[in-house]
């Protein structure tokens, strides 16, 4: 069984259905991309996996454990962490406090974990006593990644990875994600820059108006005429 297994998942807001019969499997140690235009339902899927939206139908399994409509505490404890769209840091708390909150469900060796994250992203160490709301966009994204890592996740979900960040910062964040992945953490990533994310990932899913319409190895998708036309502008 896959590490993260999404089966026949449907959900929406109010009466409005957004996602229809989504099937996604992510294995241990993979980087998997989720592509799709604005409004396709990518963020909704990410929110649903971490329990912010109720699942109407279908199931989510993590390591064989059923997480369908489970409490956020149970979902995070099972090893799922998210770097959400817009970072969503605790703006009025310092960088260190934000990192601590990331360890809410996994409180072992907090000091050591924070030190490791600072070694990983030295920029955060310089800013550790600043309020998270006062950081620059790139620093905020680093802090959000650090907060997610404090849970020692088995899978890291990243929503809108590079949105609003300068290209040089994106390069260093890509490097950070690869290093996290090399330690055995699976990564499921939503990104608008299709070229970038297909380079990063081994597999990808394409979502259109709430359904998965295409999936496969990233290098095959890069040569797929439909993907080329719709997302790469070729």
């Amino acid at each position, binding site marked *: 069984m896959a590490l993260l297994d999404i089966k026949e998942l449907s959900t929406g807001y109010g009466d409005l259905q957004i996602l229809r019969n989504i099937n996604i499997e992510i294995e241990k140690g993979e980087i998997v991309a989720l592509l799709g235009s604005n409004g396709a339902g990518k963020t909704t899927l990410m929110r649903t996996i*971490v*329990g*912010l939206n109720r699942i109407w139908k279908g199931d989510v399994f993590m390591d064989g454990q059923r997480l369908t409509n489970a*409490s*956020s*505490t149970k*979902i*995070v*404890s099972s090893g799922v*962490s*998210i770097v*959400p769209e817009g970072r*969503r*840091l*605790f*703006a*009025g*708390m310092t960088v260190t*406090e934000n990192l*601590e*909150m*990331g360890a*809410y*469900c996994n*409180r072992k060796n907090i000091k050591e974990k924070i030190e490791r994250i600072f070694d990983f992203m030295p920029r955060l160490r310089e800013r550790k006593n600043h*309020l998270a*709301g006062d950081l620059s966009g790139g620093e905020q994204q680093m802090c959000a990644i650090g*907060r997610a890592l404090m*849970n020692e996740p088995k899978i890291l979900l990243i929503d809108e990875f590079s949105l609003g960040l300068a290209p040089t910062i994106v390069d260093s964040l890509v490097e950070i994600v690869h290093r996290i992945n090399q330690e055995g953490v699976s990564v499921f990533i939503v990104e608008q820059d299709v070229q970038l994310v297909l380079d990063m990932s081994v597999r990808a899913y394409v979502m259109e108006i709430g359904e998965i319409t295409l999936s496969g190895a990233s290098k095959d998708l890069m040569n797929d005429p439909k993907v080329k036309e719709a997302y790469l502008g070729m």
Partner: protein
Amino acid sequence: MVLLQVIINGLLLGGFYALIGIGFSLVWGVTNIINLAHGAIALLGAYLTYYLFVSIQLDPFLSIPLSFVSIFLFGYMLQRFVMNLVVKAQIFILLILTFGLEIFLVNFMTTFFSADFRSVTPSYAGESLVIGEIVIPYIRLAVFFVCVIFAIAMGLFLDKTWTGKAIKATSLDIEAAMMSGINPAKIYAITFGLGSAIAGVSGTLLTLTQAFSPSIAGGLTLRAFIVSILGGLGRIEGALLGGLILGVVETLSSYLIGESYKNAIAFGLMVLVLVLKPSGLMGRKYYAEVKH
């Protein structure tokens, strides 16, 4: 000299206002609930203390822990099983709900505890500390210190414990808190429980310094409201400062202008703060930003 006495009286009264404001401000800042029943919940603590005193002569200061624990449980249950059902509703619905609760509690207390004014007078009630011409009743001094100790303890709880930090995180961004694995329904219940418990303790202390009846519930809520606005929402130091200011302003204006103007002046001060510094005198960046 009289002026100094008035200011000292104001500060001592302000300690009590701070305590009643802390619970109100905490609940408002974290859960977005403007709890109009706050004063009535405080009176539950007052009546608990009163009946323990008349039945088994339990010293009011010793009933503080009982008040804290029992009113905490009351507040926790209330949030968990009633408020949480509507907490995502518009602010208007929440106001109506807490207003309804206020009416219920006040009438409940009037029916079962009567509308008579009560007070608790332990044997040491008349003793005072006299410095020159200044007279400070020991009881008021003790009440003041208990209030300050509770305020400091609350501040430490919010800054140092996991639950306290989770409360702060939830107030800053509830969805981000959930994404860190915090269960907001539980945090809301704990917050409302704590807010109520502190109200209960201030009710206990109230019995020592003034006569009370169910009819004063609204007045207590109003003062808690002013204190929260003056100090800044969800901030313990803010409520402490707001309480002291309100206490001094009330006693000074009673003395200098006249008793009947004190409410007008207190509210005038609140409006002034809202105009000049809407986040409160000690409001912190990123906290208590408008969520509705």
